[in-house]
């Protein structure tokens, strides 16, 4: 597979895993509920309940998968490319919260979503790896 294509595919997978993971965690934690008291035993109860919630576990696994995909990207692509591109996660999470969880998005937040999207389009037009620019890939 060509490197550019591979980069975009893994980026897309990472962003999807992050979005689905956060959605699942958010959904799961809402039914777990806030701690009854902000004390160590109170927090411990929340951790215990969270760890027996299927959506929370699924969310955690998806975020682990995200981190593995992020590390894979760093094994060939520039950090200064991957980091801004992965910010698409903020847009996807906000949109998923809006579409699936019925969260409200303020005008300022819509403006932020637009800015991130414009920035990602700009960075996306630069080559993903400095090494490839210096010497042709074998």
């Amino acid at each position, binding site marked *: 597979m060509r490197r550019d294509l591979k980069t975009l595919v893994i980026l897309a997978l990472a962003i999807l895993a992050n979005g689905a993971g956060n959605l699942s965690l958010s959904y799961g934690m809402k039914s777990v509920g806030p701690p009854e008291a902000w004390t160590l035993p109170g927090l411990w109860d929340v951790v215990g309940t969270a760890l027996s919630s299927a959506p929370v576990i699924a969310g955690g696994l998806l975020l682990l998968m995200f981190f593995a995909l992020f590390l894979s990207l760093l094994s060939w692509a520039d950090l200064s490319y991957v980091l801004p591109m992965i910010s698409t996660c903020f847009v996807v999470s906000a949109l998923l919260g809006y579409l699936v969880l019925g969260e409200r998005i303020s005008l300022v937040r819509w403006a*932020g979503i637009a800015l991130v999207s414009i920035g990602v389009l700009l960075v996306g037009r630069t080559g993903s790896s400095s090494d490839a620019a210096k010497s042709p890939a074998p």
Partner: protein
Amino acid sequence: MTTALLVGLIVVCFSFGDIALTRGMKQAGEVSSLRLAVLDEVGGRAIRSPFVLLGGALQIVAFVTYLVALSRRDLSYVFPLTATSDIVTTVAARYMLHERVTPMRWAGVVIVSLGIALISAS
């Protein structure tokens, strides 16, 4: 410790954590395919890489500091400030990892950081 110091610590740990992770993963070798044998080989080297371990540790310190900062100030105050870490990371990637950061990439990074700050400030 003041919130400014906490935010500074978060930004430094996130940025240098990412730099260390990148350095370690470049040494571990390219994930050339998603075949299990390749993942096992590169993953094995990554887990034993001092740079990857250092990067992971710095990220954990950053996250815990982030939680401490959140316990003192609102999320909509702390998080936009940590968005500056992307800019610090890009400068560090340019000089420590010798990545080629073109003007277009710079423009993109700055616009993305502004966008993240807006999303989280509201």
